[in-house]
């Protein structure tokens, strides 16, 4: 009996503890489930995820449509800095140029230039004087009015940062004539100075003279980004986003509704623009499809078909021309005949297909200047482009005295297009009997190797469109590749100092022909496109080498 009671009490105590434990576990599980459901449920209430933050609707164009107040553009890389004077990174320009910073002139749709902060420009006949009459009443983001002293300070800083610009004007400097006029007197004819100022990369920007005090002594870069554009720099959350906010005191120019390239009447429909930093291509694609991003930059070629429906708008841009640049300073490629042999062997269609997967993303074209740049486009020398003649290549190789030495090509694995093209180049050169070594590394190591003339015989990279042939890097004696041909150097100098366009264009045709027929500094593969996509709600996106945040309307 006592045992039975003992057992019953023991069992009863055990039962009580068990019931208590069960209650605790049940409560905990319920709480966890509730949190998960509420957390998930809150997304469906707000619709797309980009609507989680504040999103007041605004209608500014009188059409009755309401637009999102906050837009998200997915960038494919993080800019190293927004100091455009000191970086050639495309993403830096895409974020800051035209939105935060403006220049005296800017780029038009036909790759020409148009006045922006300058109201008008006077030039003398021999291009040794440029006078810029500034627009009055333009305010910087700090509320200060833009005056000549600010323009002079900004542009002279640009000349200090950009050697090519300083060379073009022969060391001349900007001066203030009065509060709203600046001028520069190049020491030699500089017909393409305005084109240089409108360039896409490392172009001049105007900021308050006081911004020069913000330059970091360690890096030499601006640390405050104050411009005159329709958007002002608000915040940079590292590796997350760059936030621009509408500048209410922006002074537009031109005719409302008219844009020509990056110039024209700019309006900021959204009060916040988030440039989300999304390096992974698949993430950008998924984000665009789910509505997380309104615009996705540089999407993977393999996903092109996902955006073939009408709800998306695809922007295809000719963005680069990849090619094989020879080391003319040291090594095997100093032999001009060898360079001709290699160029003759290459089947550019196969190389471009290897790199860019589909003919939707490339075209074969011999011109160093893009077809879209009508003034400079020419086909001189095209007989020696895409020759793909292995027999002739072998003859030239023999003539060059090639004895089976290893031909070293450096390429970066960070760019799959270049790497894949390099594999094809390697196999084509091996087919004509060359011993080729591909040296593959990450981008930072590639840049380091490229600066060392003993490390390679050729490298693969690509070039953005430039406004004049004199800016074309493979023809620069100071850039990797180390061009050292007197005919080309003097020819480019003649172009730079020409006083009329016809002479300049004629000279360029001669130079390009010489490059293909004789000197062969560079074997161009072709022209490549990339594509970016606007989401279903994006209306009226102005696109020129990247979306323009101004005038972008995203419907709610």
């Amino acid at each position, binding site marked *: 009996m006592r045992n039975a009671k003992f057992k019953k009490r023991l069992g009863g105590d055990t039962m009580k503890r068990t019931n208590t434990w069960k209650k605790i576990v049940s409560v905990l599980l319920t709480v966890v489930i509730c949190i998960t459901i509420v957390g998930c449920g809150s997304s469906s209430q707000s619709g797309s*995820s980009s609507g*989680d933050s504040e999103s007041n609707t605004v209608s500014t164009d009188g059409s009755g449509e309401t637009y999102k107040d906050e837009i998200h553009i997915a960038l494919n890389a993080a800019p190293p800095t927004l100091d455009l004077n000191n970086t050639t990174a495309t993403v830096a320009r895409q974020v800051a140029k035209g939105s935060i910073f403006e220049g005296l002139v800017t780029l038009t749709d036909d790759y020409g230039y148009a006045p922006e902060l300058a109201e008008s420009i006077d030039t003398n006949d021999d291009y040794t004087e440029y006078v810029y009459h500034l627009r009055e009443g333009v305010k910087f983001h700090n509320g200060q009015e833009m005056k000549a002293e600010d323009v002079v300070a900004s542009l002279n800083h640009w000349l200090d940062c950009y050697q090519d610009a300083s060379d073009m004007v022969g060391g001349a400097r900007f001066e203030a004539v009065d509060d709203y006029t600046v001028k520069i007197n190049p020491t030699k004819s500089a017909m393409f100075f305005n084109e240089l100022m409108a360039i896409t990369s490392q172009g001049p920007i105007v900021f308050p003279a006081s911004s020069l005090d913000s330059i970091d002594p360690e*890096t030499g870069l601006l*640390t405050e980004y104050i411009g005159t554009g329709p958007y002002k720099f608000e915040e940079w959350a590292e590796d997350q986003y760059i936030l621009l906010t509408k500048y209410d005191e922006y002074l537009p120019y031109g005719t409302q509704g008219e844009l020509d390239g990056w110039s024209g009447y700019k309006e900021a429909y959204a009060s916040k623009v988030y440039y989300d930093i999304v390096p992974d291509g698949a*993430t950008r694609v998924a984000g665009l499809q789910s509505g997380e991003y309104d615009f996705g930059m540089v999407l993977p070629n393999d996903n092109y078909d996902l955006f073939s429906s009408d709800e998306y708008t695809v922007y295809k841009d000719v963005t680069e021309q990849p090619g094989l640049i020879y080391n003319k300073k040291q090594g095997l490629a100093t032999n001009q005949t060898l360079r001709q042999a290699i160029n003759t062997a290459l089947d550019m269609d196969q190389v471009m297909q290897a790199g860019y997967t589909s003919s939707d993303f490339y075209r074969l074209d011999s011109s160093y200047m893009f077809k879209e740049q009508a003034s400079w486009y020419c086909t001189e020398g095209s007989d020696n482009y895409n020759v793909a003649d292995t027999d002739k290549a072998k003859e030239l190789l023999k003539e060059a005295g090639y004895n089976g030495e290893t031909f070293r090509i450096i390429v970066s694995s960070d760019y799959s297009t270049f790497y894949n093209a390099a594999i094809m180049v390697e196999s084509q050169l091996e087919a004509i009997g060359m011993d080729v070594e591909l040296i593959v590394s990450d981008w930072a190591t590639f840049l380091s*190797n490229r600066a060392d003339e003993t490390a390679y015989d050729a490298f693969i990279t690509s070039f953005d469109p430039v406004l004049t042939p004199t800016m074309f890097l493979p023809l620069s004696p*100071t850039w990797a590749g180390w061009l050292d041909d007197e005919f080309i150097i003097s020819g480019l100098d003649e172009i730079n100092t020409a006083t009329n366009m016809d002479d300049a264009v004629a000279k360029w045709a001669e130079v390009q022909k010489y490059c293909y027929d004789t000197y062969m500094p560079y074997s161009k593969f072709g022209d490549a496109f990339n594509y970016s996509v606007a989401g279903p709600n994006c209306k009226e996106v102005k696109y020129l080498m990247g979306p323009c945040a101004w005038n972008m309307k995203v419907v709610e």
Partner: protein
Amino acid sequence: MKKYIIKRILYIIPVFFVISVVVFLLIHLTPGDPARIILGDRATEAKVLELRETMGLNKPIVVQYVDWICGFFKGDWGQSVFMKGTMQEILLEHIKPTVSLSIYALLLALIFSIPLGTIAAKHRGSMADHAISVFSMFGISIPSFLMGLLLVLLMAVKLNILPSSGYKPIESGLLLHIKYLTLPAISLGLMEAGLITRMTRSALLEVLNADYIKMAKAKGVHPFVLTFKHAFRNALLPIITVIGYSFIDLLSGAVVVESIFNIPGVGQLIINSIVRRDYQVIQAIVLVIAIMNVVINLLVDLIYGIADPRVRLDK
């Protein structure tokens, strides 16, 4: 116990020095430098050299190391070339998302793995046991990036229930914070769940076969009490070990998952820093992770003592 803790903390010092030298040499002897990355592809050699001089990259490597290590002890952990703020601020900004993600992933893993492992152990050989084994193998086998991509496709693109990517800090609201971390946490947590489930099952199986468990069963102890009070507590040690290592693994930065979901955590930071040769950041992260590793291992050892009083750490 105190002696043991102090001794373990002191171990950090030699670990710190060895790692500092190794990581410093590895980074600085690797080709490439931040000056070229900042200036871009088109920069002239003269400009690059000028910037290298300004940044002090031309000093002898020993001088650079001494400058850095002395600064480190004075609280100056260096400056990022690409990011603003002190190193501590940068690291803190990036550690927060990783810590949140790690805790969330681990919690999700534990919520499923402990009960599942227990059920599998208790019903060994049954359909439930087999099903749970399949689940745990699935979790261990499937790469987290593949899981992540599938989840994004289903939950974000097709069903639009959860965001595809991005991160909202906790200051934006706890629920929003959790929402953005849910898919990455599931991607990461699945593998940890698989591991912990298997460890729980095997640890419990060993204990459930012990004589004292059979005695308690014979005495009529309720199965729930038998499992969770008697058996589970004794099986905890190996489970705690796995949980500890899982946490360290998660904190070191789930690079691929952070990349897919665009979470600005430690993993992304270290990859970006390596790509652009942000030396000071790489050095600081590696040191911090090494120290965290040592500290978490210490905590795991201390937890052993709490979970099992028979463990004497100071012997």
